[in-house]
C-alpha cells in the first residue's frame, strides 16, 4: 500500500512538471530524451518536487542519474528505506 502511494506521488510529480503529459504518454521506463520538455530546468523541478514531497535530499550524483520516472522512484525508495 505504502509502495503504491509512493508510486502515485512520483507519477504525480511528472504530471505537475510536465502539465501537457497525458496518461497514455507516461511510462515508468520512458527516458529523459523521449520527453519533449525534459531540459535541465525540468530536471531541477523534478528534484525539487521530490525532495519537498518526500522530505529527502538528493546528492549531486543522484540528481544527475535520474533519467526516468523509474530512476526517481528507485532513488526515493533508497532514501526512505
Amino acid at each position, binding site marked *: 500500500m505504502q509502495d503504491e502511494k509512493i508510486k502515485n506521488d512520483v507519477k504525480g510529480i511528472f504530471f*505537475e*512538471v510536465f*502539465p501537457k503529459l497525458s496518461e497514455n504518454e507516461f511510462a515508468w521506463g520512458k527516458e529523459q530524451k523521449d520527453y519533449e520538455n525534459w531540459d*535541465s*530546468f*525540468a530536471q*531541477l*523541478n523534478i*528534484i*525539487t*518536487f521530490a525532495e*519537498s*514531497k518526500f522530505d529527502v535530499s538528493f546528492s*549531486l550524483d543522484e540528481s544527475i542519474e535520474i533519467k526516468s520516472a523509474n530512476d526517481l522512484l528507485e532513488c526515493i525508495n533508497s532514501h526512505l528505506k
Partner: protein
Amino acid sequence: MNIIDLLRNNAEKYPAKIGFIDEENEITFQKMLKSVEKFSSSELLKNKNQTIGLILENSIEGIMAYLGIINSGKIVHIIPPNITEKNFINQIKSSKPSVIICSEKNQTNFSNFNHKDVPIYTNEEIISKSTIQEKIPDINKIAYLIYTSGTTSEPKGVPISHEMIEFTTKNIVKILGYSKNDIDLTPLPLYHSFGLGCLHTSIYVGSTFVLLKNTNNLENILNSLKKFNATTLAAVPATLTKLLRFENQYLKEKFSNIRLVITNSTSIPKNTVNDLKTILENRKLATYYGLTEASRSTFMIFNENSKLDESVGKPAPGVKIKIKKIDKKLEIGEIFVQGKNVIKNYWDNSIADKNLEDGWLQTSDIGYFDNDENLFLVGRNDDVINIGGEKVIPSEIEEIIKQIPEIEDVVAFGIDNKFFGKTIKVNIIKKKNSNLEKIKILSYCLKNLEKFKIPSKIEFVDKIPKNEYGKVKRSILK
C-alpha cells in the same frame, strides 16, 4: 542661492516667526541666523581642512551646527549618532575632518572610539570660542558629505553641492506645493538625505520645521500632528504602515489638518497606499524615488488610479531617466539618472566614480516604465539571480508566492548551485496555524512561473531580516 542665503532671507522677512521646533525648544528665524553666525565664527573651525565632522542629532542644536559649519565655508561630514566604530574610522579616514562636533552626550559615547586624534568638541565648546569675524568666508560649493554603505565595498562618500540642493528643493516645492504657511512635521533622522531634504524645503519656503527627536514613537507622532497643527507629514513607509494600525476614525481626526503626506520609495506596500488614501480623502499622498547620489529623481502623487499605486511616478523636471535592459528577453532593466540632482563624482573614490559616466548615474536599481512614462521599481541589480544564464528578479517570485492566502511574508534570493551557478531559495513565514505544505507552494509556482523561476529550496522561517526602512537584508540570507 545657498541654504544660508535662504535662512538670511527668512530672518529678514519673518524675523519673529518660529522657524524650528524640536519638541523641547523652538527658535525664530532671526535667532537661528544669529546662532549660526556665532557658531561659524568659532576659532575652533578655522583651519586648513575642508571638512568638519558633525554627529548629527535631531535637535535645534544639530540644525544650528549643520548650518553653522556651512556658513564657516566648510563642508559638513554628516555622521549618524548610531554609527559603528568600524564605519566611523573608515569615514573619517576618507573625509579627513579637522574637528568633530557633537552633543555633550555623544562626546562621552564617541570618546571611546578611535578617532584618529581628531578632536571632538561639543556645540557649547565651539560657541564658547566664537570671535568677531572680520571677513565672512565664502561658502564652499559642497554643502555636505554623507556616506552610503555599499553592500560589498567600503562606504562611499557622496558630496552634495548647494546647486544640487537648490535644484532638488525647487522641484519639491513646485510639485508638492510647499509654502510659508506650512508646518512640517518630520519624524525622520536628519542624518539621512530624506530628513535633510525636508529641512532644506522648510528653509526654502520659510515654513516651520518641526523635528521629532524620537522618530519611532507612533503615539507621539500622531499627537504631534495636532499639537503643532502640522500641515505636512514626512515619514518612511514603515512608519506610515505602523500608524495605520490605529483605528480609522482616530487617524482621520489626527490627520484632519494635514494637506500632504510625503514618503520615500522604499517598498511602500499597496495596502498602505490604499488605507492612507482613505484617511486623507482628497488630500495629497506622495512618494518619490531617489538615491543620496540623485535625490528626488521622480515624484508620484497618488490618485484614484490604483494601477499606479506601486509606481514611483514620473521623472522630476530637469531629470532624465533611462532603462538599460539587463536581458534581451526582459522588458525591465537597470535605472540610470541624469540631471542637476546627480553628483558629479564621489568623494575621493575612483572606483565608485565608475558608476558615473557622462553625467549618468548607474543606480543598480531595476525597474521599468509603463506606456505613460511612470517608473516602477522591481529590485536591485545585485539581487538579480542568474540561473544558468536566465536572469530572475526576486520580487517576481515573491509577488506570486504572496498570492497564496496562507502566506504572511516571503523573500526570494539566490543560492549556490553546481550546475546552474545559482538557483532560487525562498524563505517563507506562514500565517498562524497554517498547515501549508512546501509541495503546494511549488505547484502554485509551477502554474504561474516559468520553470527556471521555480524555487529549488523552500524554508519556513519565523522572521525575515529587514532594516529600519523595511528593506529586506538580502546579503545575510542563506
